């Protein structure tokens, strides 16, 4: 391995070389990359100049930041203090007021064209965007100003991705997601309420390592995290396939871990990797469906926050199953040679026997008649 691991590296990251490489490999694995990519990540992270990150909190609940705080590999403080340089985040920074705003502007100017912009929360547009202002500046103006000099824009959470919960009809503030505001550069969206921190971290580290964003789908979501339906990787899928559904919360089927589709699980129409990477690093079952609650589809626009939790999911991309019986199903097999032989033998015996009987009947009658005539003739 070509990375140079010195005493200062160990002091800076607070972990041994072994632990550090393990972290990088885990990061690469969560994106489906090889261990070689893990090495590249290790080099990128150990680079002396940490990339600046501006994290804007808009119309949000700080849940995404809270989710980030619960990341274990790396922990958030490692991320913001040692891997990146988090120059502005209202929830985490000590500074406040005009000083903080000035620091943000200074960082944006110093790192123009190089910093990563992270957006958390929706952006209100109604009535000139007055429903979310920071330092007298509307959220929309702030986003446009920050996006102008950003090397990459990451929208974390459903609110920043498409408007999320605040945009639920009737959407009183007329809020939208970052992709509707920033038109001149690609916006990575990491939807979820909250999103899985590792989907965000992996995206950031991918950007730091390769200098470009991971492959995105048509909604700007990283494909490594959002290319599969929840339904496809769900641990309860076998119950769905066998028609075993929890009928109500707490019933026998629910306790037995049956499929939650009938209770309104949105897994069949929601794209996310929740069942694969789980939440909170506490082992199996640590995701909504694993705990017995139907997926609410928080990563999917028009599903999460719009469809009632109990409402049935539409089956996305449903294809006809291969093993279902057709309308007319021929059953059994054709005649075997042996059975056909037996049948032919029986038929031949019957025909032969019948023929002989018929033949003999006529014969006997004729004979008896002949005998009578002979007697008469005597």
């Amino acid at each position, binding site marked *: 391995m070509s990375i140079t691991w010195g005493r200062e590296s160990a002091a800076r990251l607070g972990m041994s070389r072994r632990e550090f490489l393990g972290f990088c490999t885990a990061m690469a694995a969560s994106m489906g990359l090889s261990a070689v990519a893990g090495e590249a990540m290790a080099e990128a992270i150990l680079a002396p100049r940490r990339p600046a990150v501006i994290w804007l909190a808009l119309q949000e609940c700080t849940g995404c930041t809270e989710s980030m705080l619960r990341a274990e590999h790396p922990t958030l403080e490692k991320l913001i203090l040692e891997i990146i340089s988090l120059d502005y985040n209202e929830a985490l920074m000590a500074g406040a007021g005009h000083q903080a705003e000035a620091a943000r502007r200074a960082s944006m100017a110093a790192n123009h064209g190089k910093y990563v912009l992270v957006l958390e929360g929706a952006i209100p547009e109604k009535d000139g965007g007055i429903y979310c202002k920071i330092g007298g500046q509307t959220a929309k103006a702030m986003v446009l100003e920050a996006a102008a000099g950003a090397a990459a824009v990451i929208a974390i959470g459903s609110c920043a991705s498409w408007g999320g919960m605040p945009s639920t009809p009737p959407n009183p503030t007329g809020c939208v997601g970052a992709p509707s505001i920033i038109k001149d550069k690609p916006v990575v969206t990491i939807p979820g309420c909250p999103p899985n921190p590792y989907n965000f971290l992996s995206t950031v580290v991918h950007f730091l390592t390769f200098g470009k964003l991971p492959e995105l789908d048509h909604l700007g979501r990283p494909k490594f995290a959002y290319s599969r339906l929840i339904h496809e990787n769900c641990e309860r899928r076998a119950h769905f396939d*066998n028609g075993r*559904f929890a009928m109500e919360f707490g019933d026998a089927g629910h306790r037995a871990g049956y499929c939650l589709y009938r209770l309104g699980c949105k897994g069949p129409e929601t794209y996310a990797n929740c069942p694969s990477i789980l939440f909170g690093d506490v082992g199996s079952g640590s995701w909504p469906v694993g705990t017995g609650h139907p997926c609410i589809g928080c990563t999917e626009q028009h599903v999460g926050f719009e469809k009632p939790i109990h409402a049935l999911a539409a089956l996305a991309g449903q294809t006809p199953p291969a093993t*279902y019986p057709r309308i007319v199903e021929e059953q059994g097999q054709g005649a075997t040679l042996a059975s056909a032989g037996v049948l032919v033998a029986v038929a031949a015996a019957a025909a032969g026997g019948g023929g002989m009987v018929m033949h003999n009947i006529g014969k006997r009658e004729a004979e008896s008649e002949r005998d009578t005539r002979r007697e008469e003739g005597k």
Partner: protein
Amino acid sequence: MTSTRREFLRDTLVGGGSALAAGLLPAIASGRDNLPRIPTARGLLYDSTLCIGCKACMAACKQANDLPPEHTLAEPYWDTPLDLSGKTKTVIKMYRDGTAAVKDREVDGFAFIKASCMHCVDPSCVSVCPVSAMRKDPGSGIVTNNPDVCIGCRYCVAACPFKVPRFEYDTPFPRIKKCELCEHRMAKGHYAACAAVCPTGATLYGQVEDLLREAKRRLSLSPGEETRFPRGELGGADHDVRAHTARYVPQIYGESEMGGTQMIFLAGVPFAKLGYRPLPTRSYASVSETLQHSLYEGMVMPIAALAGLSFLAYRSRVNHTLLDEEDQPEPAGEQP
């Protein structure tokens, strides 16, 4: 003897024809029509466009009726019946055409369909059963088979236009098996298990009159219109499902087929493609019973037939006697 053969044929035709006419004429007037729908009848509405093919109904049916799984694949892990059988009272089948890209489309599409007892208003199986083992409940209209009475003649298997009753060919003491709409569950306040578990409301249980009304309501909606689909029991406790209306074939199968059935269908693919062929509105039971009862009405036909036969026998006996008196029979065959 040549005239005898001709006479015999003529007499048979004349005698038989007149006897038939004498027997049928009064009977045709007394022939029965389809039985009427029972107002309190219970049944199912299966909406193919709502079905997602999850087979919950099949699993629940097996559980509710204590039926064994049926293995048809190389790996005997799953219950995979190909059709109704002595082990399977309901089965979800699939129609597929071409690329099978879109659900509920006839061309290059696919659709699911349920097979189970139709609980005919005028059931053929009840009509043909010689021992009244197959009965239709006068209240619920559910058609059940009493295995203690059944003699295993399988007339019901042959008579059913929907091929529903099945015989247990693989047991030494076989029974007739068919859907009985979970009648045994009703005593405990439950309803048909297949409808109770259906997650989408594709199989809906209820009073047939209400189900017919619900089916007509769905047909009156325009495709794509959002509406509420009841789940489980029509008018029951389970909450509705909000969904978009599919493009229906404008027909309620079972509304009039065979004089009506208590299991009715809606679908997005023509029913003939789903295994539900067009059937006459007059029930087979009413036709065959009319014919049967006409033939035996007041024993007129049998007596007439017997009289005709007796007359013919008498005639030929007289002819024989005359023939014997006129001359001796010619010698048969050559002399040896």
